[in-house]
């Protein structure tokens, strides 16, 4: 079928020759079944670009992508599935008559690619009849043939599934031994092999790796019929298997909890989670009202994501997401004023697609723009947005920010959130010193429930574990805690940010946006942060 066509077209089974031996040595290998060398992808890309031009496109780009995932899931100590997925295909985006068109296919042959190119142009022309303003693209250098790879130490796809299964089992064993009722766990690996080419002369080959270990420990109290859970303090990372190495350098031992930076100890965290889940049964139910909050990076990343990352996406600000994710309170007039106080003076947010170990790190974005770092909020003032090639002229800026991404060959690329992080404080401060200064507060570790309105004003967040702070000391655990606030009010109530020594990232594999919906992986870094006078709800209910 199409593979045979493709192999014939490339002049021989060059792709086949690249296939690793799948005999006994293949047992350790979970990589691609049929990798295609870059030179063959270049030829195929040129077929698509030429076909698009011939059909009337003024611009075209093509992404030939092979997307690999591996999932290993366990229920307690029982491994319930090992799944490798592989998806190969091509997406072609064109501008014809000043309008975008897109088509994708898993028929990766010369005929299939040419057909998709013609289809994309036909769609663009049909839509041009109702287009108001022609698409304008900010210039981008032609990079020629370049490549980039996530700087991993050890490819997690090359680690044996036995080793992975043993790790999940070890985490479950220690939790069950410690008194957990149940442990659900999983490992999720991602490898995006993306080949991008455009009619402007870039041919970009990228090999991107991500890893996400996670578990959830449940403690059931049979007498009361109640259950409590504690999820892992791991983060999804743009790393290889080295993230799982449990190196001591990754451990952050705090006053009440141990959390993790660039190396994760799944077994130790499972043991700690078990103690937390059991302790939550007897934690004190919180008194609703105003509290000062001390927020660990394992918690704060999600608040940053929802209340800073999303409202500063320029497509939302302009209304392109109005029918789905929503619009934004951070309107252009606020930015243009140069005085809009997003947060207190201590609040500095940066966008960054170069940050090591992060989920958003790439060499180039999905429209061939080199990765970069830029300021969003400086000393509390809104200074910029996240924008791509067809948007930056709206900001009177000359260069794209490099924030374009598609989650698959099958979907069109569009503006997606880079890593958005709170910069650490300049004044030396540890979390212990920060807590010592709090009279009546709650120290929140880990993320949980989250919800925010479609313009990103009103939000509600919860956490994994809550510790009561009284007169500078942690005095016990609280339960039934959620905080409700408003974005501008919340970030203006920041009165302390710990220094760089405490900086860690959290993140998500599943940031959703767009129609049809696409996911994106993004990290958010911060140091422990104090926010004063936040409204706390008590969430206990009786059925």
């Amino acid at each position, binding site marked *: 079928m199409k593979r045979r066509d493709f192999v014939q077209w490339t002049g021989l089974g060059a792709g086949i020759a690249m296939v690793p031996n799948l005999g006994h040595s293949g047992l350790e290998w979970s990589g691609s079944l049929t990798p295609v060398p870059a030179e063959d992808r270049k030829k195929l890309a040129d077929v698509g670009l030429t076909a698009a031009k011939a059909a009337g496109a003024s611009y075209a780009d093509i992404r030939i992508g092979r997307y690999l995932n591996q999932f290993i899931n366990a229920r307690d100590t029982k491994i319930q599935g090992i799944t490798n997925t592989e998806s190969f295909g091509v997406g072609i985006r064109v501008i014809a008559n000043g309008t*975008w068109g897109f088509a994708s296919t898993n028929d990766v042959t010369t005929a299939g690619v040419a057909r998709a190119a013609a289809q994309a142009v036909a769609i663009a022309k049909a*839509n041009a009849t109702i287009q108001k303003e022609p698409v304008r693209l900010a210039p981008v250098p032609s990079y020629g043939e370049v490549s980039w790879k996530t700087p991993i130490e050890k490819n997690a796809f090359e680690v044996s599934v036995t080793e992975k299964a043993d790790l999940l089992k070890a985490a479950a064993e220690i939790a069950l031994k410690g008194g957990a009722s149940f442990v659900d766990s999983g490992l999720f690996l991602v490898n995006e092999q993306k080949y991008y080419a455009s009619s402007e002369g870039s041919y970009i080959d990228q090999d991107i790796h991500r890893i996400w270990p996670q578990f959830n420990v449940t403690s059931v109290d049979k007498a009361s019929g109640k259950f409590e859970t504690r999820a892992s303090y791991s983060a999804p990372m743009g790393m290889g298997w080295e993230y799982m190495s449990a190196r001591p350098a990754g451990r952050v031992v705090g006053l009440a909890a141990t959390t993790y930076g660039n190396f994760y100890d799944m077994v130790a965290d499972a043991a700690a989670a078990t103690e937390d889940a059991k302790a939550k049964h007897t934690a004190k139910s919180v008194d609703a009202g105003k509290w000062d909050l001390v927020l660990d990076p394992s918690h704060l990343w999600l608040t940053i994501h929802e209340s800073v990352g999303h409202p500063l996406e320029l497509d939302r600000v302009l209304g392109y997401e109005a029918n789905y994710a929503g619009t934004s309170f951070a309107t252009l007039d606020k930015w243009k004023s140069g005085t809009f106080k997003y947060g207190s003076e201590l609040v500095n947010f940066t966008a960054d697609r170069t940050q090591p170990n992060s989920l958003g790190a790439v060499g180039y974005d999905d429209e061939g723009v080199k990765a970069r770092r830029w300021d969003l909020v400086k000393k509390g003032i809104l200074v910029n947005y996240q924008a791509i090639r067809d948007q930056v002229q709206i900001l009177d800026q000359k260069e794209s920010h490099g924030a374009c991404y598609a989650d698959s060959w099958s979907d069109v690329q569009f503006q997606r959130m880079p890593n958005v992080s709170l910069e650490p404080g300049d004044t030396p401060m540890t979390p212990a010193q920060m807590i010592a200064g709090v009279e009546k507060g709650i120290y929140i570790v880990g993320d949980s429930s989250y919800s925010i*309105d479609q313009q990103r004003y*009103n939000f*509600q967040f919860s956490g994994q574990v809550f510790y009561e702070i009284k007169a500078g000391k942690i005095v016990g655990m609280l339960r039934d805690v959620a905080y409700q606030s408003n974005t501008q009010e919340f970030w203006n109530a920041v009165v302390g940010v710990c220094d760089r020594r405490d900086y860690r990232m959290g993140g998500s594999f599943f940031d959703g946006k767009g129609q049809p919906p696409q996911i994106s992986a993004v990290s958010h870094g911060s140091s422990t942060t104090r926010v004063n006078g936040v409204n706390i709800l008590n969430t206990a209910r009786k059925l």
Partner: protein
Amino acid sequence: MPEMTDQQMRQLMERALGYSKAEACEINIFGSQGGNIRYARNSVSTAGANEDTTLVVQSNFGSRTGTVTINEFDDATLARAVQRSEELARLAPEDPEFMGPMGPQQYAAVNPKAYSRATATITPEFRTRVAKASIDPASSRDCTAAGFFQDSVNWQGMMNSKGLAAFHRQTGGSLSVTVRSNDGTGSGYVSRDFNDVSGFNPESTSAIALEKAVASRNPKAIEPGKYTVILEPEAGVEMLQVMIGSMDARSADEGRSFLAKAGGTRVGEKLVDERVTIYSDPADPDVPSSPWIGDGRAVGRTNWIDRGVVANLYYSRYWAQKQGKPATPFPTNMIMSGGNASLEAMIRDTSRGVLVTRFWYIRFVDPQTLLLTGLTRDATFYVENGQIKHAIKNLRFNESPVIMLNNIDALGAPIRVQGSMIPPMRVRDFTFTSLSEAV
């Protein structure tokens, strides 16, 4: 690749099974072909056509399982995918809960309304017409439309080494539209979904969002608190989906579900108001769906809540066998019985309350009580003495669907929304906890 026939799916799956050296092998195919158009700012933004077919190979040695998914079907890739799944299976630990593939099953006939030739042959020009049906009327009334229309034909097949063979195909499409008033104070929304595009009218659908946008301008703030709410089906559907989606038997039996209680579960107990009956039925002509699910089990009509009582929970095959219960599969659609009253009649019959047209960003707060939080969005109104008095600002709620369904005081006529049939509901004492400035 164009739409696959059953015969083509069968041939592909037989080829894959032909490479199998495992003790058991199961193949699933999921394919789709379709197109979409997205618009915003009264202009088209992106549009596309997509096609893909995925094949899943699951191999077993004893109770060890390995699974590989591919979308390339030449002989070499197919053979390697089967081989890779066998290697993974050999490395996988024994799974004491493994049930093995099922033999041949009897399935109910698919409702012929599931597949429509008209939907399968939608053109880019039709999609452009749909966008225009939102954009032109919005522009003429000082409003801005954003929307998304998508259509697809989907095919699915399954075969295994024990002789089971199952095939299904259906068409589907949906339109969602948000219209915002250009003064930034009003917003309205509509969504419609269908199997057969012939009964779908883009003009009258879009008009609903436009009317709501105009009517919701200049909202006033009300104090958060407990209110009687009238929930349009679009507002009710997601909270119900969360509840029905949480009716897993094993979680309840293990004590980690809203249906768990000290010493057992709430199955057979009255959980909500006796006017509430929620069931699923793939043969339903309004929301036709597949009569089988991905592990080969036949799906029939199942009552989940029957006149307020927890009637059934869904089971994995393993848990059903262990508990000696029928292996009731997860629902493929959701139908809530209602009354005959129209939404307008329910409003006329309300002395004081809040009309919610839509909720947004619903998330769990507490799985023990199914406490959820979320916000109203895109047109919320204050109702007094049987009339809509004025638009109100959006509100955040913290409420459990279980408490909500206990506080039902009227149900209207169900309509199709998000693949389910949901009536408008009037509910007492619905808990709003804060105001939002968002429009």
